[in-house]
């Protein structure tokens, strides 16, 4: 063997440098300084910019109070059987440890330190859905995961979208019904994407699996409730402009006797709930109760919060503690302090749901039942909580008001020091019960003072001392107020001291009052109390200024009506200015002393912005004009010296002296000559510095504090920030100013703030409202703005919803949900003919917006609305019920809409360009109306109506641009005005016993169907196949004389008529018997053959058709297969690729 193994030659190493070394060729890492991905940075910047921009919204003022906001309304929406009740029960159970037996009406629950939520189950009818969409802050949209989105869900989403779109949180339930994990996964994904297209990309969808013990799993509920409790809400435009309330309790206050007399009498109804939105007006607030109608709030009472937040309670406690502290300092025995709470304990997890059977409080149609508990309960339980105490107090109906006040100061537990004493008073008056309501009603009418207390009278009872400022708030308040005073101060102060309390506001803080009372020596009137009282303006001023001691006010006020009569004749006493002589004496300028107070100029000095005077001898010697000039000259000289100091100021001063320009130069020279030699440089500098300071001061003075402008310009770097800062500043001012007012004034100015729990009393409510009350249907009370109380025509932009099956017909009734209201109206659809006129449309266009004009209560422009054809369940089919959506554009009291009208006539006599037309008008008067109007023939010849003909009535003479034909038809195109029908039919679903069955005016089609009336069809209107008769024209006949004159080329070639008969014409062919038979046979055979052929042909055609069908089917099948194959292939390929990329590959590779 050779032994020598022929080894493979060593491969020469590459001489090329490795990539890394290459990078370091020039001493540094080139990659570090290169652009790795060109354009990446730009893309990043663009993306982040876009995100930032998308986050921007038009700055809007959020008017919900920050410190004690109303509860968040959470509407739980979904088709029946999706688990709405179960969800509410689970959430309530999680939040309060209370198990609900039934969910009826709104349920308010404390969900955090500063937050409460109101749950509201929305029934599956359109009316409830509409009302819920208008007030809900958050919508829990329940979706049956097994089924997918249902029609109701889609309808609700559309409704919500057109009422400002609250936050929507999808909740998919029934997910435990899925057998396999993969199908669950795909179902979830499908659902999620479907929801995203409806709500927004990335909308949150919660998944709840099966039900355990009648609740959803605790972990899932917890997650959901956490998500809810941190959610933030953007103010929505409509809600930010209106007060509204979701009633959680309704009571009938009508006197039982009145009802007994007449069961159908109008009722007085109290509605309770938390206020939302803007503050509710102090008195006579107009509201709309959705589904019931418009009402005026006859009485509002702020009640203690039945479901206070821990934060609020803590604040109360703090106030209490401070009071105790103060009491301890003043030497009173120290009461037991309540401990400070650090965490939500179970006692604070309050639930308030008067309509559901919860917490021992059950609301019935006519009464509220309170479960006082077991025998362990005792009335005088010292350790009882606030709520318990209040309930026990409620039972003490035998005690009088005063007694209750004296015995039980614990009643104040709900109220804080400053504001709530007043409320408490109101609360007490509320507790007086049904019987007192009648009296209260009487009292309410009796607003305004009947008697004014005579000031400075000694030795009167306190109860007689009606405070002037209290007069307007009604008699019962006065009495209680004085009672309270007696309790508060009775022992400590003498009654005559109390006499000075005219001006003091109602404040509970004893010390403050005491100080005020002691400190007050002179009697002054508060202008705010006088301003809107019933005394005459002159007297108001007299009292306010304390000019004259009123000789006999009491008498004046008793003759109230006489006063008014005088009022009418009352003359504004004098002109604003005094006589010329007096004016002269006020502003005398010759030789008087400046120090005299009556010198007008002196007192006016602070009203003028004058250039500073720097020279020593300046003074205020304005007596002599020349002297004045001299002063200015001095200044001018200085100014010129260092004019770079403040150019603008110098300029201004120059203008000051315009009037005396003549001797100005001379004076200036004089001044210049005088000054320079005297001053040293130091002195000069000092002078300059002084002047600088003075000018600066003046400059600052000049720049008045203009609100908003300079405060933020430094901080805010853009317009958006600036606007936001401005709003915040304004809110701050509002808060500060309102807090500075006393509670009654504040209430008058601001109204009842959102977040307060109020009782609204309505009078003359239809009895059906109470009789058919069912807590499952939300009672929404929405405040109305003044515009919304007026009626008129609204022009709007409207579009038929693309999912609605039918197009909409003009002046067919449409139920609109606009603002708070739901009403039926008759819209007329129009389009704008190149902005010259509004032309009526018979039907809405298929896929475009058009205009709609309708009559109804006005709503501010830019408000969106939604329309339906039917609301009732009975007529509901499976189809989509939202018929139209739109937005209000313009309000008006009338609108011009026209309809096209074509008048047709026929000529009966034609001259050259003139023709007589008949059949267009019926009399000469009508013709006269249209004289000069443009007319047209079918062939397009234009003309004009000239004059009516005297003889056949209605015929007229017209001229045309050309001769018309007798067969022409003449058209006159005109416009006929269409009037909008004033039809407004509010949806009163809440008054029905069966709330879902409200039916309004029927559609035209419906009526026809119900009455079996055929749709009227005019002969003319129907389309018929166009039949065009073949026209036969006679042969051209040219007269012989003309023919003779024609040139040769145009000669008509005509054959001469044949004279002899042809061969065939001469002979007649007669068939013999045989021949005849043969022919007959042949003919028969031919016809049979033809028949056969045609049959075969039709059969083969059929066959080929079928074949084609089959082929198409096959092709489709093949295509599907192909797609599946491709999909599978690419999936596999992708996975392979992925696993290769990732190295080891994941466990998913299995598939």
């Amino acid at each position, binding site marked *: 063997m050779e032994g020598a193994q022929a080894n493979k030659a060593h491969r020469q190493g590459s001489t090329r440098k490795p990539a890394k070394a290459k990078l370091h060729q020039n001493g540094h890492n080139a990659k570090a300084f290169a652009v790795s991905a060109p354009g990446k940075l730009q893309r990043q910047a663009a993306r982040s910019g876009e995100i930032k921009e998308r986050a921007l919204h038009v700055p809007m003022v959020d008017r919900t109070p920050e410190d004690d906001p109303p509860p968040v309304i959470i509407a739980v929406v979904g088709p029946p059987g999706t688990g709405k009740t179960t969800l509410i029960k689970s959430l309530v159970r999680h939040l309060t440890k209370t198990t609900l037996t039934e969910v009826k009406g709104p349920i308010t629950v404390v969900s955090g330190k500063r937050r409460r939520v109101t749950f509201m189950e929305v029934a599956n009818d359109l009316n409830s859905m509409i009302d819920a969409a208008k007030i809900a802050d958050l919508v829990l949209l329940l979706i049956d995961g097994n089924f997918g989105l249902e029609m109701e869900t889609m309808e609700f989403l559309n409704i919500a979208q057109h009422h400002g779109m609250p936050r929507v949180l999808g909740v998919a339930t029934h997910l435990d019904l899925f057998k396999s994990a993969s199908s669950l996964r795909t179902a979830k994904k499908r659902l999620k994407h479907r929801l995203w297209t409806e709500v927004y990309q990335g909308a949150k969808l919660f998944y709840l699996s099966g039900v355990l013990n009648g609740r959803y799993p605790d972990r899932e509920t917890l997650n959901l409730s956490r998500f809810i409790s941190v959610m933030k809400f953007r103010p929505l435009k409509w809600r930010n402009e209106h007060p509204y309330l979701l009633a959680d309790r309704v009571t009938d206050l009508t006197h039982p006797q009145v009802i007994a007399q007449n069961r159908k009498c109008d009722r007085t109804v109290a509605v309770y709930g938390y206020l939302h939105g803007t503050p509710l007006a102090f008195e006579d607030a107009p509201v709309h109760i959705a589904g019931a109608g418009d009402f005026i709030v006859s009485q509002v009472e702020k009640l203690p919060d039945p479901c206070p937040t821990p934060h609020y309670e803590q604040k109360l406690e703090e106030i209490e503690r401070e009071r105790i502290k103060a009491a301890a300092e003043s030497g009173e025995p120290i009461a037991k302090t309540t401990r400070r709470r650090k965490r939500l304990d179970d006692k604070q997890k309050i639930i308030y749901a008067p309509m559901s059977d919860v917490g021992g409080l059950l609301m019935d149609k006519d009464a509220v039942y309170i479960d006082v508990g077991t025998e362990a309960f005792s009335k005088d339980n010292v350790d009882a909580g606030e709520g318990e105490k209040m309930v026990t107090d409620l039972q003490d109906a035998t005690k009088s008001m005063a007694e209750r006040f004296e015995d039980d100061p614990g009643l104040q537990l709900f109220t804080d020091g400053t504001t709530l004493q007043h409320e408490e008073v109101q609360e007490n008056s509320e507790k007086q019960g049904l019987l007192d309501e009648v009296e209260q009603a009487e009292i309410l009418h009796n607003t305004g003072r009947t008697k004014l207390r005579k000031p400075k009278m000694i030795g009167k009872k306190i109860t007689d001392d009606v405070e002037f400022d209290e007069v307007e708030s009604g008699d019962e308040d006065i009495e209680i107020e004085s009672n309270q005073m007696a309790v508060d101060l009775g022992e400590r102060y003498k009654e005559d001291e109390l006499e000075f309390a005219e001006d003091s506001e109602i404040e509970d803080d004893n010390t403050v009052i005491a100080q005020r009372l002691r400190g007050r020596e002179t009697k002054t009137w508060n202008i705010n109390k006088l301003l809107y009282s019933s005394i005459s303006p002159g007297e108001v001023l007299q009292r306010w200024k304390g000019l004259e001691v009123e000789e006999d006010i009491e008498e004046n006020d008793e003759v109230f009506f006489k006063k008014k009569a005088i009022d009418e004749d009352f003359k504004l006493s004098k002109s604003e200015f005094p006589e010329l002589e007096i004016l002269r004496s006020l502003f005398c300028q010759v030789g008087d002393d400046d120090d005299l107070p009556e010198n007008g100029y002196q007192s006016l000095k602070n009203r003028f*912005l004058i250039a500073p005077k720097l020279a020593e001898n300046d003074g205020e010697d304005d007596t002599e004009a020349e002297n004045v000039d001299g002063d200015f000259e001095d200044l001018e000289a200085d100014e010129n010296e260092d004019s770079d100091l403040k150019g603008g100021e110098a300029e201004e001063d120059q203008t000051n002296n315009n009037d005396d320009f003549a001797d100005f130069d001379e004076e200036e020279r004089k001044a210049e000559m005088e000054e320079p030699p005297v001053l040293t440089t130091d002195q000069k500098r000092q002078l300059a510095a002084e002047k600088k300071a003075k000018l600066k001061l003046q400059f600052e003075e000049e720049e*008045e504090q203009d609100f908003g402008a300079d405060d933020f310009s430094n901080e805010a770097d853009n317009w958006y920030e600036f606007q936001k800062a401005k709003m915040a500043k304004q809110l701050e001012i509002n808060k500060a100013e309102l807090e500075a007012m006393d509670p009654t004034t504040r209430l008058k100015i601001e109204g009842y703030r959102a977040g307060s729990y109020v009782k609204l009393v309505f009078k003359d409510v239809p009895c059906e409202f109470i009789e058919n009350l069912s807590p499952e249907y939300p009672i929404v009370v929405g405040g109305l703005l003044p515009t919304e109380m007026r009626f008129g025509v609204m022009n709007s932009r409207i579009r038929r919803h693309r999912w609605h099956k039918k197009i909409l017909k003009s002046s067919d009734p449409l139920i609109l949900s606009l603002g708070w209201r739901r009403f039926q109206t008759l819209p007329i659809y129009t389009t*704008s003919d190149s902005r010259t006129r509004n032309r009526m449309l018979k039907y809405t266009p298929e896929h475009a917006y058009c205009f709609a004009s309708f009559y109804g209560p006005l709503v501010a422009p830019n408000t969106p609305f939604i329309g339906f054809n039917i609301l009732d369940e009975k007529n509901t089919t499976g189809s989509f019920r939202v018929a139209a959506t739109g937005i209000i554009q313009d*309000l008006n009291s009338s609108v011009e809409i026209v309809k096209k009208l074509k008048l047709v006539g026929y000529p009966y006599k034609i001259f050259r360009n003139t023709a007589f037309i008949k059949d267009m008008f019926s009399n000469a008067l009508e013709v006269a109306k249209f004289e000069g109007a443009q007319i047209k023939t079918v062939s397009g010849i234009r003309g004009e109506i000239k004059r009516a003909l005297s003889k056949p009535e209605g015929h007229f003479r017209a001229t045309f641009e050309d001769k018309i034909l007798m067969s022409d038809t003449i058209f006159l195109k005109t416009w006929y005005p269409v009037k909008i029908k004033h039809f407004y039919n509010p949806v009163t679903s809440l008054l029905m016993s069966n709330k879902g069955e409200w039916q309004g005016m029927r559609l035209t089609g419906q009526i026809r169907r119900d009455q079996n009336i055929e749709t009227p069809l005019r002969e003319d209107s129907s389309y018929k196949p166009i039949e065009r008769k073949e026209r036969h024209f006679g042969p051209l006949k040219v007269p012989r004389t003309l023919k003779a004159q024609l040139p040769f080329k145009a000669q008509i070639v005509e054959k001469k008529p044949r004279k002899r008969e042809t061969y065939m014409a001469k002979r007649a062919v007669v068939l013999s018997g045989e021949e005849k038979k043969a022919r007959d046979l042949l003919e028969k055979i031919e016809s049979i053959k033809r028949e056969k052929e045609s049959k075969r042909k039709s059969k083969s055609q059929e066959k080929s058709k079928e074949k084609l069908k089959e082929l198409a089917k096959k092709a489709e099948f093949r295509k599907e297969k192909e797609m599946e194959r491709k999909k599978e292939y690419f999936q596999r390929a992708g996975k392979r690729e992925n696993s290769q990329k990732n190295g080891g590959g994941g466990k998913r590779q299995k598939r």
Partner: protein
Amino acid sequence: MEAAVFQGHHNFRERVVMATLHGRPIKITKIRSTDLNPGLRDHEVSFLRLIEAVTNGSKIEISYTGTTVIYHPGIIVGGQLKHQCPSGTTVGYYVEGMLYLAPFSKNKFSIVFTGISNSSSGPGIDAIKWGMLPMMEKFGVRDIAIHILKRGSAPQGGAEVHLVCNTLLKLPLTLHITEPPKFSAIRGVAYSTRVSPSMVNRMIDAARNVLRPTGVDVNITADVWRGEHAGLSPGWGMTLVAESKKGWRLTSENVGTAGSLPEDLGEKSALELLYRLQHNAVVAGDQVPLTFIFMCLGSADIGRLVLHRDQIDERLVLLLRDIKEVFDIEVVFKDEGETMMAMVKGRGDTSAAKKIQGF
């Protein structure tokens, strides 16, 4: 809506204007019922006609004696109009009324008024032009102008005044005037129609003599009208305006009567201006109702306006009561010694007339 009921002829124009702005019907009874000449005056009826012309759908019912008026307001539509003002009062009476409505209209206002430009029976056009328009700017009404095409004195008139308002507001801005401004200049117009121009100069000299000691810039323009632009009657008068740098204006005006001296008139005007400055803070005279009404129309925030103590007079009390009657808004005063701070919470709802553009 429930009608607001008033008695007496006071604030007639303001009541009508407020009702129109708020959309609330009003009923005014006992208009000069005890007067020898009872009922509405010509100029008031003319004003009602003008209101009818600039609104759509308003209804006016005047009783047989003219002592009772029921007014159902419509929607303010504005537009281009001409209005012939009767001789009872000046053109200013109507122009001023229109200033309230113009910014809240559906369409722009462009009205030509003919009548008397200046007279002692009503507000002069100069005072409105130089005193009211800058006021309106404070509320965001920037594009508004008054063009005096012709002047005409009482009794025959012959003036032509063109009011143009191009600004259409949703809400007037909320005002916060917490300190009385300082006035830095006094300007003015002395006009004459169909009389010798020397009258004007004499007025200016007299006024300037009075104003000189104040130490501020005084600039009074002579405005002499001749020929057909000077109207039909002879007359002369003066309007003085104190200006602050921030755009606040206080005015005084006077019109010469037969037999009076121009010197007296000049002096009187100047003294009255000084008196106004002494007894008014930011707004005075006819500016006051405008300011308060615009503040009421503003957003639902608290606006503040400083007033001099002397400004709270019968007129103001009457006005505020009328405001309360129509708008249901109460004004609260805060005592700050020399001055009073008026606080008004705006109504806060947007003007109904405003339309949004079509697609």
